[in-house]
């Protein structure tokens, strides 16, 4: 069975594409839009160095990938290009600083710098290049969301499975722990943890993981209890299957539906919460490529001048739009998945 005939795999693909779930998914125009948005953000993150190339002045990204000019860093034969694509140094995650003026500069307005005239696509905010911040911020958002959800799943599934499968005092301890976590609005708990630990991406990830695994654990535990009572598990056990084998072969696949939907929704929600942390001033360090930061810069510029009340619209508009679209994409996708996988909805 190692070599699957091509026709068979094509046929399988075809069956998948025409399966009831996929048909339902495709019919939902909002879902398709959500899917499109999510894909777009993934592509933006992947090609960030090409969309917002590291500038000659403004941060030390070029220096740290060992390139002298932007063109050199974008040449695929140069090692710096591959570093930018897959292992960009920390300095690349500093928003490029065009100048040191707090007053915003509108999109595409030329600004003289030491490296010649530049025209920031989305303008500047606190002297930072908003376009650079949004593009590289996509990487930050996805990195944050994916890392957090991955660890939440890892811990949640493991503890949930253990809790449900073994029961007894192990179950009791884990459930009480979950009770404690559930006894707090998760955002408030994250705020407490990050404000005590300090500003860094790792601490923010840690806080979200600590707070968020419990939901998954509950679902997996419930599913385990349900599955355990089913006859085929007894059958499997009678046939000599180990506990772990039963967990991996039967329990986890059964709870995957519910978990996937929540995980997808979380992927969209976590960067939003992180932005809220930045708003309160306890998020990522200043200058980090992070959307919440850009929104937080915009707080002082939401009003315009006496002549034009919308003078500085762009400062808040682009970051807010980005955040809203990002959340929208994952949310639509999550909703659609739920609808598609929910056997009750027809």
């Amino acid at each position, binding site marked *: 069975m190692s070599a699957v005939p091509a026709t068979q795999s094509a046929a399988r693909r075809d069956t998948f594409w025409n399966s009831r779930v996929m048909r339902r998914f495709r019919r939902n125009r909002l879902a398709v839009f959500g899917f499109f948005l999510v894909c777009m953000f993934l592509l933006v993150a992947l090609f960030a160095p090409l969309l917002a190339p590291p500038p000659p002045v403004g941060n030390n990204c070029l220096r740290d990938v060992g390139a002298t000019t932007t063109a050199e860093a974008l040449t695929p034969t140069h090692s710096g290009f591959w570093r930018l694509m897959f292992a960009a140094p920390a300095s690349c995650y500093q928003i490029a600083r065009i100048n040191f003026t*707090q007053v915003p500069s509108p999109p595409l307005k030329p600004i003289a710098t030491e490296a010649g005239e530049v025209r920031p696509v989305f303008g500047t905010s606190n002297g930072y290049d908003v376009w650079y911040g949004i593009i590289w911020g996509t990487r930050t958002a996805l990195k944050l969301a994916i890392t957090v959800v991955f660890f939440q799943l890892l811990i949640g599934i493991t503890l949930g499975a253990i809790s449900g499968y073994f029961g007894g005092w192990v179950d009791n301890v884990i459930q009480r722990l979950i009770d404690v976590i559930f006894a707090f609005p998760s955002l408030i708990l994250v705020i407490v943890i990050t404000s005590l630990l300090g500003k860094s991406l790792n601490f923010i990830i840690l806080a979200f993981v600590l707070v968020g695994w419990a939901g998954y654990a509950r679902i997996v535990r419930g599913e385990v209890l349900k599955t355990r009572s089913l006859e085929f598990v007894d059958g499997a056990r009678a046939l000599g299957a180990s506990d772990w084998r039963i967990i991996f072969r039967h329990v986890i696949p059964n709870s995957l539906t519910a978990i996937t939907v929540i995980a997808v929704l979380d992927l969209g929600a976590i960067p939003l919460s992180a932005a809220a942390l930045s708003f309160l001033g306890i998020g990522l360090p200043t200058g980090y490529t992070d959307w919440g930061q850009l929104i937080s810069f915009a707080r002082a510029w939401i009003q315009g001048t006496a002549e034009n009340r919308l003078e500085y619209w762009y400062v808040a508009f682009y970051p807010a739009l980005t955040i809203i679209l990002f959340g929208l994409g994952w949310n639509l996708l999550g909703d659609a998945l739920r609808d598609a996988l929910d056997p009750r909805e027809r």
Partner: protein
Amino acid sequence: MRKTLLAGALALAAGAAFAAVPNNTLVIMHGSDYPTLDPGQTYDTGSGELVENIYETLVTYKGKSVSELEGLLATSWNVSGDGRTYTFTLRKGVKFHSGNEFTCADAEYSLRRNLVTNNHDSGNWFIAESLLGTSANAADDPQAVTWAKISNAVKCNAQGQLVLTLPARDPAFLVKLAYTGQAIVDKKHAASIGEWDGTEATWKQWVGKDLTDSNLSKRPSGTGAYMLVRRDTATTVLRAFDGYWGGKPKIENVIVQTVAEQAARLEALKKGDADFVETGPRSVLSQLQGVPGVKIYDGIPNNVSSAIFMNQNIKDPAILGSGKLDGKGIPANFFSDVNVRKAFAYSFDYDRYIKEVQLGKGTKRTMLLPDMFFGYDPKVKTYTYDPKQAAAFFRKAFGGQLWQNGFVLRASYRANNVASQTAMEILKANVEKLNPKFKVELQAKPWSEFLKSSQEGKEAMILIGWAPDYADPDNFLYTFYHSKGYYNPRANFKDALLDKLLDQARQTIDPAKRKALYSQVGQRAYEQSYYILMPAGIGFLAYQDRVKGVEENYNIMASGITGNVWRLLSKAGL
């Protein structure tokens, strides 16, 4: 039902026109809450703004001046020949809000109370330094602070005059008394609501006491022109005091509100819902200029001195990297080479900082002393941005080794402080341009950590400022340059000449001689380039133009955003 509800809600939103602030009322919006209304604890501008209107000090700054004083609760005073005894004649016919008559006993009680409590968060350390010879309270230093010393230093004589006796003369003493924290409280009232009763029997219980939430803070009674009506969570309401000795002030009510969001405060100012708001940095002016009804008073002198510190003995190995001049770190004594300090001073782009961060409204200073203070010498030389000079000094440093091997310097700035972050970024960019082997890494540190580690001498390079406690050069120059100064552990140098000059100045009463000594301090500091001096941004005040009398008496030593005591203000139509 729901339709009516919705309609009702809309009607609510579109409701009556929103009248601006009434004529007899002043509305001030702060960005954050103020801690206390107890003068004995007041050590921040937020509390100070209210305290200086509820209470009064013995002396105060005259008009806009920061050097001339005039009597407030004292009508006159004389100083003994040795400069150690001050006798104050007190104003007659002054009443507290409680109705009690102001007497010498109240003044005596107030100053003794400050010496007794002298809480660590309060501003009483500098008055203790003058009156007791130590900044400590009796818990920290039981030998130096005794009841005998306190009661001898502050007492009333038979004529009802207040007599203050200093262990050594202090040219800055009188101006220290102008500080809001030394305001006179109502002894009878205070004792009756459970504050210290003023006797020797109980003084020990009050040593070091935190007065932030004291009974007196909750129920203040001063001699000032305004009395507290109520203090809610985010709103404080004050009302003109009918029995004020100087006549009832023009503005009847004052409302002080806490509004954390800057955008909301600016809107309130634009709309006329507030007369004064805490505006934020100069860049917000573009949103306020030309708004009808809003007046901008620009060109307010800055009374803060800020500098980039170059620590000559860095005590944290983590900051040093390799700890050697091998291009991977710095030695602990990196900044003890004067060439390095000068090179850095030549690397900072002062003009760009003024142009981009201060929007052209900044001035370079020659000394770490506000330019309108006594003792400031504009003729002392300054550094300018000069990459050639910088490179030349870097080549000279450490016998050329530095230029050859390069370095990695880890500098810190206070997290969320955009101005100091920007200054560091400018310095970093310019230094790194000189030589590809020069690297400056910037770290944002939370305020607490930043201050603590720098106090322990662990930071290589930081930017920090000093705001005056009282208008005297000693408060600045001793702090920065003396080897026993408060900021010395952050810079770690001992310059025998500077120590000598500063000690001498402390004992010199003759203004001309004292001034000459401070000029010498400035000159020496320039030659040795101990700090990189930050340009001082010029201040501004945006307010409703219906408020009158703001600019005539605006004094930078006043605590509040109005720069005035409120009784001097009035409103159009009053």
